[in-house]
């Protein structure tokens, strides 16, 4: 009877039998009508994850261990890589890895493995998947939090003790509510309790992960369940399609268009939903239609959602803005609205994040929709309101004023660059300049830098058709960038990928990822902006004065003593490196690094760069010797 049921189920899920025939087939072999209807109802839930009734078509029955079934379901969902750390209990999953359709990438710390999975997800715009040890939940939390802040669809999973060992028994590497620590940073979490339904749970997790605005999901898999033999349907699906694309009502779009047409001084503020939604070309066209100036939301630092050297690009939104004057309308497209708005300006906030709209401040016109759809609809609505001639008149006048301003901003930056060009330690501006000269036009930057970041990034052309930026994570928890860069390189093997780290951030547990970078021949460049300091922390802590400022004794930020040679560290992982302190050596060393990357190997560049701000000249730190505490000298 089971085989009849499974064959009937397979035909139904493949759209080869009707609902009536399904029920008749089952009742013919003795299943009650009620049971058949109940099973039909559960299948319809399955089909929602399959883009509607058999829309993506294919279902295959899989017979084997639950662990193997999970891997088959990952493959059917287009997942190519399992990021993992060392763990026991998932052998049946690993037995199913064929290295053809799916492969494993080992990273030696859960936190870095999660950030690698996120980097992969961000670069490929697909699902990131991680599995690790049951006891690794704690290590994973920092970058799980970052992925949650970034709204990145991911599944972060853990092996677990068998079901019989759970429940108040204080088991080995176990605690009862295993996924409770992850709850704050996930759209959903589930400890599996049934082997047969584990593939279905995985599909449900994908749906939760991709439900707007996107988020991680945590699962755990008890070892005894993974080993159990099951017979389960595996659905071919595209997890991205499990997420519906929803549009705003035409009334809201028309209202937004009217506000834009009536505004004397509008601006767009753009955020990461633009790049995620694949709307980077469309936002340019929309902005150019009426020459609306565009600013990047500082709280959405993940991507450069608008070309950074476009005449309409005002740079990062830093209120109160000097241009344009008297802003009377802000249209926020896919960004947070956490920053202060210009006084008197109306706010239109378009986002797929229902929680984000109206959270920070009143919104005159909320638009809950995919931002890519909103941009397209708004553009059409403008065409319906304004003639081409009228658009042209508005466009020309605004473009002239805005481009005059942005030209001056760029001129000022060039003055600053020339003024700091030959400084030693190397200026951040010089590093940005040399990278712009040396890197491929479409290189991918993965920065994890503090508030000095734009001193470098402003000299690199980013955006549609130019360099792509992924980072910094909106979560800002340090210890993200190197792992993320590995994932990015894996997703984009044909692009030059450059991880740009502060020395402080690199030392947040990231050096061990050099092992994975070396092991997997990830030909990326890791740049350490080495100023021997937590520069941002020092400035923030001392900005109010206080005893540390008055005495010149900063208790927390100096990172020299010892001065780490990161190039030497790289050699321990069989990675070439170089330490550069002379700005004139930067260009030739970059060329050496790029050659190494083109030859298929990574490179670590340790750059002596300037500190800035309060007490930047100081190398004082609180000295303390544990050896000197010894009473026994021999």
């Amino acid at each position, binding site marked *: 009877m089971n085989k009849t049921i499974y064959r009937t189920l397979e035909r139904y899920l493949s759209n080869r039998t009707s609902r009536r025939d399904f029920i008749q087939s089952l009742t013919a072999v003795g299943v009650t009508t009620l049971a058949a209807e109940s099973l039909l109802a559960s299948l319809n839930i399955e089909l929602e994850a399959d883009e509607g009734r058999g829309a993506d078509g294919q279902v295959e029955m899989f017979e084997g261990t639950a662990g193997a079934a999970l891997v088959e379901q990952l493959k059917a969902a287009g997942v190519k890589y399992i990021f993992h750390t060392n763990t026991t209990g998932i052998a049946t999953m690993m037995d199913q890895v064929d290295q053809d359709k799916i492969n494993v990438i080992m990273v030696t710390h859960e936190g870095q493995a999660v950030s690698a999975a996120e980097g992969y997800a961000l670069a490929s715009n697909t699902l990131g998947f991680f599995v690790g040890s049951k006891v690794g939940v704690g290590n994973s939390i920092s970058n799980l939090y970052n992925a949650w802040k970034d709204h990145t669809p991911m599944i972060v999973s853990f092996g677990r003790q068998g079901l019989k060992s759970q429940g108040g028994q204080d088991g080995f590497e176990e605690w009862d509510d295993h996924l409770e620590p992850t709850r704050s940073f996930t759209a959903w979490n589930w400890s599996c309790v049934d082997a047969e339904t584990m593939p279905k749970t995985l599909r449900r997790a994908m749906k939760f992960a991709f439900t707007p605005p996107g988020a991680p999901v945590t699962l755990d898999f008890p070892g005894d369940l993974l080993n159990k033999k099951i017979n389960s349907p595996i659905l071919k699906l595209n997890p991205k399609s499990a997420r519906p694309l929803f549009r705003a009502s035409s009334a809201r779009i028309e209202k937004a268009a009217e506000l834009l047409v009536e505004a004397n001084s509008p601006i767009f503020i753009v955020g990461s939903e633009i790049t995620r939604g694949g709307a980077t070309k469309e936002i340019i066209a929309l902005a150019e239609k009426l020459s609306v100036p565009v600013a990047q939301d500082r709280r959405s630092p993940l991507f450069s959602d608008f070309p950074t050297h476009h005449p309409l690009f005002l*740079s*990062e939104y*830093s*209120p*109160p*803005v*000097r*241009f344009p004057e008297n802003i009377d309308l802000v249209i926020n497209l896919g960004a947070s609205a956490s920053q202060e708005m210009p006084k008197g300006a109306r706010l239109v906030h378009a986002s797929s994040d229902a929680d984000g709209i109206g959270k920070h401040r009143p919104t005159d016109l909320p638009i809950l929709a995919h931002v890519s759809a909103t941009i397209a609809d708004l553009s059409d609505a403008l065409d319906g309101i304004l003639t081409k001639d009228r658009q042209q008149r508005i466009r020309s006048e605004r473009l002239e004023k805005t481009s005059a301003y942005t030209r*001056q*901003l760029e*001129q*000022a*930056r060039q*003055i*600053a*660059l020339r*003024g*700091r060009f030959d400084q030693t330690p190397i200026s*951040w*501006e010089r590093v940005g300049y040399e990278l712009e000269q040396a890197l491929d036009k479409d290189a991918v930057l993965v920065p994890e830098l503090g*508030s*000095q970041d*734009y*001193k470098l990034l*402003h*000299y690199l052309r980013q955006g549609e058709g130019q360099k792509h930026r992924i980072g910094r994570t909106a979560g800002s928890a340090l210890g993200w960038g190197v792992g993320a860069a590995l994932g990015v390189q894996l997703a984009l093997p044909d692009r030059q990928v450059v991880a740009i780290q502060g020395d402080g951030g690199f030392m947040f547990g990231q050096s061990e990822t050099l092992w994975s970078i070396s092991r997997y021949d990830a030909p990326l460049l890791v740049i350490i902006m080495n100023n021997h300091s937590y520069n941002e922390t020092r400035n923030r802590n001392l*900005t*109010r*004065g206080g005893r540390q*400022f008055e005495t010149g004794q900063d208790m927390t930020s100096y990172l020299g003593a010892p001065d780490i040679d990161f190039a030497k560290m790289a050699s321990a992982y069989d990675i070439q490196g170089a330490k550069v302190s002379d700005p004139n050596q930067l260009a030739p060393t970059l060329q050496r690094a790029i050659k190494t990357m083109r030859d298929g190997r990574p490179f670590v560049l340790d750059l002596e760069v300037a500190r*800035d701000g*309060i007490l930047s000249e100081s190398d004082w730190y609180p000295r303390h010797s544990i050896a000197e505490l010894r009473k026994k000298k021999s």
Partner: protein
Amino acid sequence: MFISFRYRIKTLLVGIIFLLGLALIGIQGVGIASPSRPIPSQSDGVSEGGKIFGQACIQCHTRPILQRKTEEGWRDTVYSMISRGAQVMPNEIDPLISYLSHQYGPDSSSQPAEAADGNIAVSEELGQKIISRVCTQCHAIEVVTESRKSEVEWQETINRMIMYGAVLTADEKSVVESYVTEHFGIQ
């Protein structure tokens, strides 16, 4: 050699345009500053630089400026801030540096200087003293004296400045509110 009338006119027009261009550049000043270009005199630069500081720098800096630097030091800092994203125009760089090195140079006292423009009729009343002491830590005095607001608007402004970091006791706040409403209110 025959030179056509059209060619002569064209050459004359080009010459006139060229000379006009030179004159314009001479009037406005070349926008590219360089370390060798003379800094405007301190009295000219200070108030202009103070205005620039009040518009461009307070986007990020909401605290009194604690550091004291030479002109060279402040130039490097201003360049650094421009790279970070400070919205400073090329022709504003030198006045801003002049302001900072005058107000926050190595020999500056911890209290900022009095307003540079002696034409402002600023009395010795308590309100004026408080404004000079507190407000000019972040922006030029003209930002206050050239504004005209209602009583409610002045109160909102002062509340916002306190949020930005202006340090005022409750009594001082009352004094300042009364003073600015009386002297710089909407007539």
